[in-house]
C-alpha cells in the first residue's frame, strides 16, 4: 500500500521507540508509550477511512489493542516494579520493544512486497523476544529464546517458500504455511506460545500473543496456498490446542492454547473458502483474548466471550465445510466443542468485582473490547458486514 498515511502509521511507532530508548524515567516512558499508541489509533482510523481493505482493518485492530494495552500497562508496570519483576532499565527495553513490535506488525500488514513483509516480521519477532525477555528471571529468558528460535526457524522456512514461489509453487506454499504458522503459534512450531503468554510481562504477553499471529492469517488469505494444506494444518492445530487445553495449565497458558485452537479454525476456514468468516474470527479472537488477559483472566464475561467463540465459528463454517465434504464437519465439530468445553470448565465465577472496583480506568478497555466482540458477532450493522466481505473476499 502506498501513500503518506501508511508511512505515518508505520513510522510513528518506530520513531516512538527511538524516543523511548533515550527516556530514562519509567513514568515518562509509560506516558509516551500511551500517548503514541493513542495517536497511532487516530492515524489508523484515518487510514481505514481512506481505504477499507483487510490490511487497513488489521492496522486498526492492532492499533486499538495496542492502545488499550498501553493504558492497562501503565498500571501494571508500577506493580511489576514494586514486585521487582522489572527494573528501570528493563522497563525501557520493554517500551522500546513494545513500539518496535507494533511498527513491525503494521509494516508487515502494509508491506508492498513479500520480502518487505518478511523483513517487517523479522523486526516484529526480534521486538517480541525483547518484550517477552524484559521480565526478570530465567523463565522469561527461556521463553524469549524459545520464541526467537521457533519464530526464527519459521521465518527461514517462509523465506525459503518465498524464494521457491517462482519455481515450484505447491512446495513453496507448504513452506510459507509452515513458516508463517510458526509466528501464529500453530502446529508444529507452536511450543513458544504458551511460555511467552505465561512468563512475559503481562501487557507485553498480550500484544505478543494476540497481535503477532494476525499477520500470518492475512498472508494465508492473500497467498495462494493449496486449500487441502490449509485445512489439514488448521485441523491439526485445532485438535492439538483443544486437547492441550484439557491439561491443568495456569489461566494465561490456557488463553494462549485457546488462541492456538481457534487460529487453527481460522486457517481451516480459509482452506474451505470461507475467507470473510475466517477474517471476522481473527478480529473477534484478538479482541476477546486481549479482553480476557487485560482483566487478568478473572472476569467471567470476558472468559465466556472467548469460550463461546468456537461455537460461533462452527455456525459460520458449517455451511462452507459441508460444501467441501460433510465428513470434515466431524473433526471440526469435535475440536471446537472440546475447546469450548475446556474453556467453560475453567470459567471464573467472579464478576470482575475486585479489579473493576480497584481500578475502573484500567477495566474500561477490556469492557470496550468485549462490547465490540458482542457487537461484531451478534449485531453487526449491514454495511460493516459488507465491508468485511469485500475486504477479505
Amino acid at each position, binding site marked *: 500500500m502506498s501513500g503518506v498515511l501508511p508511512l505515518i502509521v508505520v513510522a510513528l511507532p518506530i520513531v516512538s521507540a527511538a524516543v523511548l530508548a533515550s527516556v530514562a524515567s519509567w513514568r515518562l516512558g509509560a506516558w509516551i508509550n500511551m500517548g503514541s499508541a493513542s495517536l497511532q489509533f487516530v492515524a489508523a482510523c484515518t487510514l481505514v477511512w481512506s481505504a477499507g481493505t483487510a490490511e487497513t482493518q488489521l492496522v486498526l485492530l492492532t492499533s486499538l489493542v495496542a492502545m488499550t494495552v498501553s493504558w492497562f500497562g501503565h498500571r501494571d508496570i508500577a506493580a511489576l516494579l514494586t514486585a521487582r519483576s522489572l527494573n528501570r532499565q528493563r522497563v525501557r527495553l520493554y517500551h522500546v520493544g513494545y513500539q518496535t513490535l507494533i511498527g513491525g506488525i503494521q509494516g508487515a500488514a502494509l508491506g508492498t512486497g513479500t520480502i518487505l513483509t518478511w523483513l517487517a516480521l*523479522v523486526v516484529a519477532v*526480534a521486538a517480541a523476544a525483547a518484550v517477552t525477555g524484559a521480565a526478570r528471571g530465567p523463565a522469561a529468558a527461556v521463553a*524469549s529464546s524459545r520464541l*526467537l528460535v521457533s519464530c526464527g*526457524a519459521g521465518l527461514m522456512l517462509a523465506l525459503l517458500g518465498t*524464494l521457491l514461489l517462482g519455481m515450484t509453487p505447491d512446495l513453496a506454499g507448504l513452506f510459507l504455511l509452515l513458516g508463517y504458522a510458526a509466528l501464529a503459534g500453530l502446529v508444529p512450531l507452536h511450543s513458544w506460545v504458551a511460555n511467552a503468554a505465561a512468563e512475559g510481562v503481562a501487557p507485553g504477553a498480550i500484544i505478543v500473543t494476540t497481535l503477532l499471529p494476525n499477520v500470518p492469517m492475512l498472508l494465508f488469505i492473500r497467498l495462494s496456498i493449496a486449500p487441502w494444506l490449509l485445512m489439514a494444518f488448521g485441523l491439526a492445530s485445532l485438535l492439538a490446542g483443544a486437547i492441550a487445553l484439557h491439561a491443568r495449565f495456569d489461566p494465561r497458558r490456557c488463553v494462549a492454547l485457546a488462541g492456538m485452537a481457534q487460529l487453527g479454525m481460522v486457517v481451516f476456514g480459509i482452506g474451505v473458502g470461507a475467507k470473510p468468516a475466517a477474517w471476522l474470527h481473527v478480529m473477534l479472537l484478538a479482541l476477546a483474548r486481549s479482553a480476557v488477559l487485560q482483566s487478568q483472566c478473572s472476569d467471567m464475561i470476558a472468559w465466556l466471550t472467548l469460550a463461546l467463540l468456537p461455537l460461533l465459528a462452527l455456525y459460520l463454517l458449517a455451511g462452507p465445510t459441508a460444501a467441501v465434504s460433510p465428513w470434515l464437519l466431524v473433526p471440526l465439530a469435535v475440536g471446537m466443542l472440546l475447546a469450548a468445553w475446556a474453556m467453560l470448565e475453567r470459567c471464573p465465577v467472579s464478576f470482575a468485582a475486585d479489579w473493576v472496583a480497584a481500578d475502573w480506568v484500567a477495566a474500561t478497555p477490556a469492557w470496550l473490547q468485549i462490547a465490540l466482540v458482542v457487537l461484531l458477532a451478534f449485531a453487526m450493522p449491514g454495511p460493516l458486514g459488507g465491508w468485511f466481505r469485500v475486504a477479505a473476499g
Partner: protein
Amino acid sequence: MIAVAGAATLLLSVWLLLTRRVDTAARLCTLQALCAAVPLGDRMPAAAILAFALNGVALPSAVMRMRDSPMLVPRGRVLLRWAVAFVLLVVTIVVLGNVGAGGTVATGTSVVLLGLLMADLRGHPTLYLLSSQNGLLLVASASPDLSVSAALAAAVPLIPGLVLADAWLHP
C-alpha cells in the same frame, strides 16, 4: 561448477551433524558459506561477498568467541535424529531433483531443512541456523527472477544474528 559447489555445501551440512566441537562446526560453517556463495557470485558478486563476509567470517568468529562450552550437546535421540535427517534428504532430493539448474534447489532446500532440524535438537542453534542461511543462499542463486531485495534477504544472516544476540544477552 555450480553443481559441485551445491554438493559440497550439502556434504558440509551432513558433516556438521556429526561434529561435536563448536570450533570445528564454526570452521565448517566458514567453508560452507564459501561454497554457497560461489553460485551467487556469477549473478550478484556484491551479495556473494557480503554473504561470505557475514556467514563465513563474522558470525562463526562471534560464535567461537562467545561459546561457554567447547562441545555441542545433542538433545533427544541420536538414532531418531539421523532417521529424520535421512528421510528429509531423500524426500527433498526426490521432490526437487528436477527443479533448477544442477540440482541446486534440491541441495539448497536440503541444507535449509537439515539446519533447522538440528537447530531444534542440539545445543548451539546459531551454527545450524547459519548452515540453513547458506542453504537459502544456494536456493536464491537458482531463482530465475531474483530481485536485489531477495538476494540480500538470503545473504544477510538476520535470524542467526538475532539468536546469537539473544544468547549474548541471556547467557
